[in-house]
């Protein structure tokens, strides 16, 4: 029976070894794909950065502040549909959860399925809108414009708002950041606004709508780059771990194989010795 067990264990180990080797191949190829996507995303982000920073400048310079009022808070959580990218989605989900817990009158617009899955269980009532099919292809301005248009059309009102996304720092690090969002009333009541010439509500409305699309576009670009670099790191670690497992399994496999052979030899020899002594 020991012999049978030895053979069965050998087969089990070799099956396990084969599957881990396959997994390592998959994670290595995912890493290559993410590396290529990351290079492209980083290039596009570099071109989009002056645009995104410029879009935030006007609100800073005009010293726009959140509207006084009880219309609640709007959070736009920017993320994507695909996983296996480290802490990208969970860091956003965590901050949204603490924000909702602090202020129950919060509406969340979710861009990307993964954050929806995180928030669905406890805060399904706070979810105003979910945008899917995000992350497969690089974002273009048209996508951000579409999301902005839907938010505007839905008529969500808010006194305080923010866009939550992962800002790209380096290949190995990203930071979850927020960009403030201001309602039209907040802009109209900005402390420095009287200094600005020839403004009417039409101009302010078009301006805030275009800014919303621009800021969303910028946050999507930053998030995409952070996601690809995080996935690259995660898949690299996974391949390394798989490699370690393969080494350990190979060791176990060889040891078990040798033990099986030794056992067979012992049985043969003791059987032969038993026959000899009988004679």
């Amino acid at each position, binding site marked *: 029976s020991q012999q049978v067990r030895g053979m069965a264990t050998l087969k089990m180990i070799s099956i396990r070894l084969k599957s881990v080797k396959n997994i390592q191949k998959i994670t290595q190829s995912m890493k290559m794909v993410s590396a290529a996507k990351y290079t492209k995303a980083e290039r*596009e982000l570099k*071109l*989009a950065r*002056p*645009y995104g*920073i*410029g*879009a935030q*400048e*006007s609100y800073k*310079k*005009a010293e726009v502040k959140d509207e006084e009022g009880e219309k609640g808070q709007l959070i736009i959580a920017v993320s994507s549909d695909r996983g296996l990218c480290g802490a990208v989605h969970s860091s956003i989900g965590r901050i949204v959860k603490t924000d909702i817990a602090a202020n129950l009158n919060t509406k969340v617009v979710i861009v990307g399925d993964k954050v929806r899955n995180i928030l669905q269980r406890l805060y399904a009532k706070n979810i105003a809108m979910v945008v899917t099919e995000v992350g497969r292809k690089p974002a*273009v*301005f048209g996508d951000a414009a579409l999301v902005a248009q839907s938010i505007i059309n839905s008529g969500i009102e808010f006194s305080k708002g923010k866009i939550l996304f992962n800002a790209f720092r380096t290949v190995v690090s990203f930071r979850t950041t927020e960009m403030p969002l201001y309602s039209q009333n907040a802009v109209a009541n900005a402390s*420095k606004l009287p*200094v*600005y*010439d*020839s*403004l009417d509500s039409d*101009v*302010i409305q*078009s*301006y805030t709508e*275009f*800014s919303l699309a*621009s800021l969303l*576009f910028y946050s999507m670009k930053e998030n995409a780059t952070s996601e690809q670099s995080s996935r690259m790191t995660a898949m690299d670690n996974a391949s390394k771990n798989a490699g370690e497992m393969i080494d350990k399994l190979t060791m176990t496999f060889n040891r078990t194989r040798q033990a099986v052979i030794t056992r067979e030899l012992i049985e043969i020899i003791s059987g032969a010795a038993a026959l000899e002594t009988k004679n």
Partner: protein
Amino acid sequence: MALTRSALRLFSGRFTQACQVRGYADAPSMSLTFAAPSQVLYNNISVKQIDVPSFSGSFGILPAHVPTLAVLKPGVVTVFENDGSTKKFFVSSGTVTINEDSTVQLLAEEAVPVDTLDISAAKELLAQSQSQLASASSEVAKAEAEISIEVSEALVKACE
């Protein structure tokens, strides 16, 4: 006698105008950031003057311009650089912000140098959008066709 007097008056008028121009040139320079979602044209570059087409009228921006926000109309943006050269870009839409400290953010949805425009393609686009308007059924489709016409008309004008 009268001729010389009126000539003197003419000359003095022009002289004061020249003084005014010199006044503006001494003002602090203006830093322009002109970007589109996928390209950067100017990033905090000091320029002399910028002409922009906006829905509240086309206007030129010089240093120490009064702060304002405006929404861009399809048309040509002309940038007068410090070394005297001018560059023209066609923009489809966007916003322009002039701040108190003379920084200008020109954010365009799409911006292309005018010399890369093809006039025959622009005219074709205009014809297409006009037929679109004729066949438009809903309000939304009509509005979209009108926007298309506005952009293509501006494109044709920019090429000429």
